């Protein structure tokens, strides 16, 4: 009954446009209604409703055994979530900021990622939380965490760029039997440019499949998260010069949809990768070598990348803006590559 729902999980039922944050709240709420094995764990997600209020109203509705406030112990409660998953529950763990996933690095990479392989069975578990810069959060509240886990076989990594995908991907992640890291960009949570009316049905978006955000012939821009929007802005500027860029939104980073990238690169012959995360050891490298393996003969120019610079995330606004990749950086690099 929509009347008693918190408004941020009732947007779709009320036919209103939803933000990314609301789409995530809706996915959690609907899956908890659908499947009573799903439960939430995290710091201050219950009475307080979460640092970003994603789970506001959940405790009242689902009760304390399904909305579990934890001590400040990311490693411990992620390990416990794994044990609960082994016993048939489907935990969704919130990191207050994804930067604080690092105390859980050991249990995620050594224990959780290897469970199926070691014979301890599938381990359905989602670790979700806010990532990304631009919010003046400084080095400990602004990181992107994908590359901490991208090298670990057995994990999946999802990073949506819009409300529709966020909801559909989170539902898929929660129904997946593998552990999934789910990154939510703070800059998208309540962004006015990023609200949409969501399909009213119980839709899912499959993991491991990229999306063509814009079709084009002259250059492929592969990106994800907030950078999808920067890349689309850049594409609009390029279009004024007659350059038609194809923008691919990866959506899932691991497993990587190399088929989609290869299909685009074999069409355009040029590949630019744009990620907000820092440069060295970023995902652009893996994409580059996969396209060497798959599409070398189609490359009419070097595979290039636009990224943040190799530094912790700066605290001051001036420095953070300088640090982050900008729309103009994408335009410059794309122009260079198209003219190559």
């Amino acid at each position, binding site marked *: 009954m929509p009347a008693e729902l918190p408004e941020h999980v009732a947007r779709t039922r009320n036919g209103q446009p939803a933000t990314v944050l609301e789409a995530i709240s809706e996915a959690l709420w609907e899956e908890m209604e659908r499947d009573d094995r799903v*439960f939430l764990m995290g710091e201050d997600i219950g009475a307080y409703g979460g640092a970003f209020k994603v789970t506001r109203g959940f405790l009242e509705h689902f009760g304390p*055994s399904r909305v*579990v406030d*934890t*001590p400040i*112990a990311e*490693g*411990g*409660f*992620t*390990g*416990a*979530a*794994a*044990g*609960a*998953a*082994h*016993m*048939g*529950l489907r*935990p969704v763990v919130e990191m207050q900021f994804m930067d604080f996933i690092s105390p859980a690095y*050991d*249990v995620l990479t*050594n*224990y959780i990622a*290897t*469970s*199926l*392989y*070691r*014979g*301890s*069975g*599938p381990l359905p578990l989602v670790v979700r939380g806010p990532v990304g810069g631009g919010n003046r959060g400084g080095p400990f509240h602004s990181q992107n965490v994908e590359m901490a886990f991208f090298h670990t*076989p*057995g994990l*999946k990594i999802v990073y949506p760029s819009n409300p529709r995908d966020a909801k559909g991907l989170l539902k898929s992640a929660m129904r997946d*039997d*593998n552990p999934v890291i789910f990154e939510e960009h703070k800059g998208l949570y309540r962004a006015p440019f990023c609200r949409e009316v969501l399909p009213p049905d119980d839709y899912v*978006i*499959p993991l491991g*499949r*990229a*999306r*063509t955000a814009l079709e084009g012939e002259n250059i492929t821009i592969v990106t994800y998260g907030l950078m999808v929007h920067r890349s689309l802005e850049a594409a609009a500027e390029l279009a004024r010069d007659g350059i038609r860029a194809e923008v691919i939104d990866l*959506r899932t980073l691991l*497993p990587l*949809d190399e*088929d*989609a990238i*290869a*299909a685009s690169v*074999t069409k355009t012959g040029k590949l630019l990768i744009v990620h907000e995360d820092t440069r060295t050891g970023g995902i652009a490298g893996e994409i580059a070598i996969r396209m060497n*393996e*798959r*599409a*070398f*003969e189609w490359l009419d120019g070097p595979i290039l990348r636009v990224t943040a610079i190799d530094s912790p995330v700066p605290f001051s606004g001036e420095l953070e803006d300088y640090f982050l990749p900008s729309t103009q950086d994408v335009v410059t690099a794309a122009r260079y590559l198209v003219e190559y």
Partner: protein
Amino acid sequence: MTTESAASSRRSVPLGRKVTEDLLYIGYQALALEAGVRTLARSGELDPTLAGFRIDVRSTVIARAMRQLPGGRGDLCFPGPLSPGPSLAFGATPLEFLRHAARRGTSAAATRSGGLTWTEYGRGLFGWGGAGGVMTQVLAGAALAFRQRGEDRAALVFEKCSAVESGGWHEGINLAGTLVAPLIVVLVAGSMGCGTRATGVDKVARSYGIGLTEVGDEPHDDLFRKIRLARAGAVDGGGPMLIHLKARSGEDRWAGHNDFAAWAVREGGFSRGDRSAIARAAVAGVDHAVDRIGKEPGPDPDDALAPVFTECDSERPWTRREPPHPHMAAGAAVEVANAR
């Protein structure tokens, strides 16, 4: 529960005939298996570091005091550093243990995973997953699942006492305490490792407000009763319980079992002949295993390297060794599917 109240439990928990027989059988199995492993290690059939292999027979009693049910409906046990003791008590065979010790055998997981423990939910057995302390977190989560579903089940975990040095262990025990999860943690006094300032396991238990049972040289009928009581406390809302398995004061590591065997004839209703028959049967099983282990073939990589992700097909797409990728030849068409 304090040591005192446990000791006074002597009369309150009667040992049935089945339990007595089991404890005798498993104890003799452990005795024979210890000798078997040492022999195999000296002959080069097993890792030479196992030449001084020991089994703490008390662990078989602790494990047998849990609630054991078929089909994965009973208590859960991570035998940890005391495997195979608790594994035998949870129904593992000596041959299964030897397969793990030999890194080969019929189970694919056995050949992939390593360590002297393994997972078999049907029997309530749980395999090792990495850093010391982590299994306390994982079993805390399993116990949480039991409590949330209102089941009469507990989770039992054996850790070296050095677990107290690791933060991960503290996070696990604190979480179990906060969530009042039926977790029983056995801390095994060890020999290596630098140690901790927290010398008194009793003080650690007190600082978390959880029950403590100390185990020394007592006869196994007493030990069994103590553990039964601790388990009952944990499952009946007492939350986590700590069991301190202290270093033995006497020389004879098998004294507790031998005292118990004497008690079985004296008060337990067994004849000397019964007892000998039980011992012979246990030893015969171990003999068979020791004989058989050398004759089993090693695993076939193509069969045993199961997929890392649950939905991987049998082609194992993660096997990317072959550089000549089919798509790499110039002009080959690239078939791709693109989502949304």
